């Protein structure tokens, strides 16, 4: 048995599983395809139902992961091949070049000032810009810059070189190349997380291409104190404060004909949170929420939605939106209120669509590499959804987080610890077996000695 675990994905679930295993004294290889860890939780403004600031609770965890002596963090990395079986998986990991030497970079930011390239910042969901050399967020772990080779003016041959000139400690290395490493691990936890649904054909009705129509994660960045507006809610088109905001739930979810049949589970709660946070920032504003069912199943969740309705005067309208379109600098929202059976027309300044949760685009590829199953949408399937919810069915491969299906942070964290428990049990059982075997091996020697005597 190789007593080392591989964790694919360093969002909150991968981090939790890594910490639980590493704190138990085992080595962990944590592989993340992005330049920094934290996943989508790092992008969130506050979290429901306590309105804790997401960064404030997450950053110490990220630092803990980054500094843990038993966790080897491989960012900008992808698992490309897996062979072998539980106890001895042979894994090939492709490490994309960062073009910045991690051990040297001190995150001083001198390089950024000289970079002439401006591209949309993914971390801010395109609401702000970044340079070709950048750090995803000020709290990023590892706190190291990286160079986006797509955006850079040209690495081969080198067309600019300004960032390297500016870097006094010479941490920038344009000659870095992709590198494939091979490792052996005993167990694997798959925690590849989610993306938001972006099917143009389906989302077109909501006019998602309009700057003042955004998805939930964009709105998180708009609310975030560390976001592009410093937490001020202003609409992207003309930088005015929106007075009427419409939230559309089930954007692509629960729509078997034109989207996805499943429920994305977390949107009801984050929309209620968005409504409350918006009202805290714009007390004179008005919020409308279009919903089918309000799904507030969780500790303190029901009470939280009640607070959005009662204290923050959010108007909940039970019904679907049929059309969103721009008119006279505003957005017309046409819908129906199924409780009064009347048409509803709202002239909104900003529209936020709770876009469906879809598995990471990598999930099918990872599943194939590992020989585990995914459902028709690409979510991993557990061996038995009820009795063994974190086991993939393949011995030694365990599952955690939204890769299994939509779920919220506490569920994800508990489940990731659950996956860690399976790894810990497997390692501990193997150790016990090894001890027993060693004892057995020693026995004949003892017998031989007896014979000699």
């Amino acid at each position: 048995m190789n007593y080392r675990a591989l964790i694919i994905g360093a969002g909150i679930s991968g981090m939790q599983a890594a910490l639980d295993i590493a704190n138990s004294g085992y080595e962990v290889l944590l592989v993340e395809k992005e330049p920094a860890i934290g996943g989508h939780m790092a992008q969130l403004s506050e979290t429901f139902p306590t309105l804790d600031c997401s960064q404030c609770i997450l950053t110490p965890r990220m630092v803990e992961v980054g500094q843990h002596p038993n966790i080897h963090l491989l960012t900008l990395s992808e698992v490309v091949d897996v062979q072998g079986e539980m106890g001895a998986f042979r894994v090939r990991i492709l490490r994309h070049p960062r073009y910045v030497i991690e051990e040297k970079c001190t995150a001083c930011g001198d390089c950024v000032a000289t970079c002439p390239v401006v591209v949309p910042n993914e971390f801010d969901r395109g609401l702000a810009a970044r340079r070709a050399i950048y750090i995803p967020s000020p709290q990023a772990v590892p706190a190291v810059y990286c160079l986006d080779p797509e955006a850079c003016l040209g690495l081969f041959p080198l067309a600019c070189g300004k960032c390297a000139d500016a870097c006094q400690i010479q941490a920038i290395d344009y000659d870095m190349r992709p590198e494939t490493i091979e490792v052996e691990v005993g167990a694997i936890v798959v925690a590849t997380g989610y993306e938001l649904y972006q099917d143009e054909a389906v989302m077109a009705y909501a006019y998602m291409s309009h700057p003042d129509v955004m998805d939930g994660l964009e709105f998180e960045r708009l609310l975030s104190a560390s976001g592009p507006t410093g937490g001020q809610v202003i609409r992207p088109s003309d930088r005015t404060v929106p007075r009427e905001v419409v939230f559309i739930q089930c954007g692509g979810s629960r729509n078997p004909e034109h989207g996805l049949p499943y429920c994305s589970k977390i949107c009801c709660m984050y929309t209620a949170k968005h409504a409350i946070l918006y009202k805290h920032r714009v007390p004179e504003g008005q919020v409308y929420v279009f919903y089918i069912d309000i799904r507030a199943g969780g500790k303190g969740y029901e009470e939280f939605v009640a607070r959005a309705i009662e204290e923050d005067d959010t108007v909940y309208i039970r019904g679907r939106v049929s059309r969103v379109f721009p008119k006279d600098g505003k957005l017309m929202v046409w819908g129906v209120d199924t409780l009064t059976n009347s048409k509803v027309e709202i002239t909104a300044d900003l529209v936020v669509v709770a876009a469906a949760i879809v598995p990471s685009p990598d999930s099918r590829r990872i599943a194939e590499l590992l020989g585990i199953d995914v459902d028709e949408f690409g979510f991993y399937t557990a061996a038995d959804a009820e009795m063994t919810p974190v086991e993939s069915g393949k011995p030694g491969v365990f599952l955690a987080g939204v890769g299994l299906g939509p779920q919220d942070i506490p569920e994800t964290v508990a489940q990731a610890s659950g996956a860690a428990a399976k790894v810990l049990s497997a390692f501990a059982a193997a150790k016990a077996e090894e001890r027993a075997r060693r004892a057995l091996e020693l026995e004949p020697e003892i017998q031989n000695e007896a014979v000699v005597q």
Partner: protein
Amino acid sequence: MSRIGVFICHCGINIAGTVDVERVAEEIGQHPQVAYATTYSYMCSDPGQQLVRESIAEYDLDGVVVAACSPAMHEATFRRAVAAAGLNPYRCEIANIREQCSWVHEHEPGRATQKAVETTRTCVEKVAWDEALEPFHLSVIKRALVIGGGIAGMQAALDVANAGFPVVLVEREGRLGGKMAALSGTYLNFSAAPGLLERKVEQVLDHPHIEVLAGAQVTEVEGYVGNFAVRVSALADPLEVGAIVVATGWDPYPLSRLPEYGGSELADVVDGLTFEGMLQEGRAGLGRPSDGRTPREVVFIQCAGSRDPERGVPYCSKVCCMVVAKQAIMFKEYVPEGQAYVFYIDIRSAGKGYDEYVQRAMEDHDILYLRGKVSKVFRGRDQVIVWGVDTLSGQPVEVAADLVVLATPMLPSRQAVTLGQTLRAAVDQSGFFSEAHPKLRPVESLTAGVFLAGVAQGPKDIPETVSQASGAAAKVLQMFSQEVLIQEPTVACVIEQFCSACGACVEACPYGARAIHPLWHIATVNAALCQSCGACVTACPNKACQIHNWTPKQILTMADVLVGV
């Protein structure tokens, strides 16, 4: 007089871009207790740490202040660094001049510099009075106690035992299986619940590392993380365990609290758990309680007591929407000629495959979902009349039902509140055990060494319970992987000359860490239980209670710096 070294970090331009770090060094260098003050571009880098270590020897420093980023980032780093140079790590403090200074005062460099000086000076004053402390080492008894033998408790027990550690599983009933044993089927795996459960029960009973104490209850808990002594009703001697998993589950809501639905008054109004029992027998079991006749018209009322802050419970019981869909489908399978009606407020089928499942109930099984509350349930001729409203059509609805099934709330186990007191683990106003943090520490209680699994923490369904129970097991395994537990020494202490043994601290302590010594007649602190909250410090009329390295002297001196005294 102390000899304190102050190390001011530029953090590239993060601090130095706003704060004039050289001026901070110059001003703080004039402090009588400061023997050396310097700046460096990245104090956390290897050369930066080297600078700190070498300066300790060179300037014979007995305390260190690092003015840099938040202590959450690098307090551990610098404490390790000073320890490597032979200084007690508790004589190193971090002044946060980045997050709480340069980053938030970007446009006011002058005042930011002044604030950085003052922030650093408060830490100098603190270090001057910091004691050299040693962390506590606690031994760990590598045996776990699981309270509750339902699916959550069994799963947690199995995960811990499979790793080779002994587990004692205490169950108040005479058998294992909990509420799941009463189910006819789970919603993903119809009619398989008893089979699924039996296998788990067998695994638990056959496990060489699990000792099951059925028909027993936990009566008393003493000790602290790693070292609990637990009295169980079935045992003469206390049980010594290192960790406790609370998996006490839930109890049904009394029907008598639902008179508007004919609860406990009308024989043919039953709760979901009773209906599960009927379904277990198939069509034969579905005879209605009043006359044994097979019901044709069955009305399911969701949120019968849940989401009702005035009369019932304010929370959502989370599982009922799916349970009702399953029950209605099973009823239709056993009684194809029957009709099922479901009154609901919102259909909460959030979970993998759940929404599709409810869709099937409506489309493939013709179950009639009515969005609205039921206003009244009363006795008709041979039937039960249900009056409600369909909020979608705005029409009143009347159904003459043969049987009414109430989806009543999940209440926390009857024993939860008492057990919470016994364990000194907090329960919320509804009686569910409180987790240490609602987002990031969902399976830990606020009491070290006590973990939570299943519905004891809040309503949840079987897959979530099973995952979470394994999560609780992970925390136990993590603890058992340590030979000793290291406890921070910055806990409460007593100045014995001032203590009058009045007991105010004992009353104030939420963790049971304080007691009055029976012989010496002074207050004592159990350092393993103390969480350094400071409640005793404020409660003590004689100022005999203090927190190590957070003494009133230190805090007041720090405050003096800030108000400019």
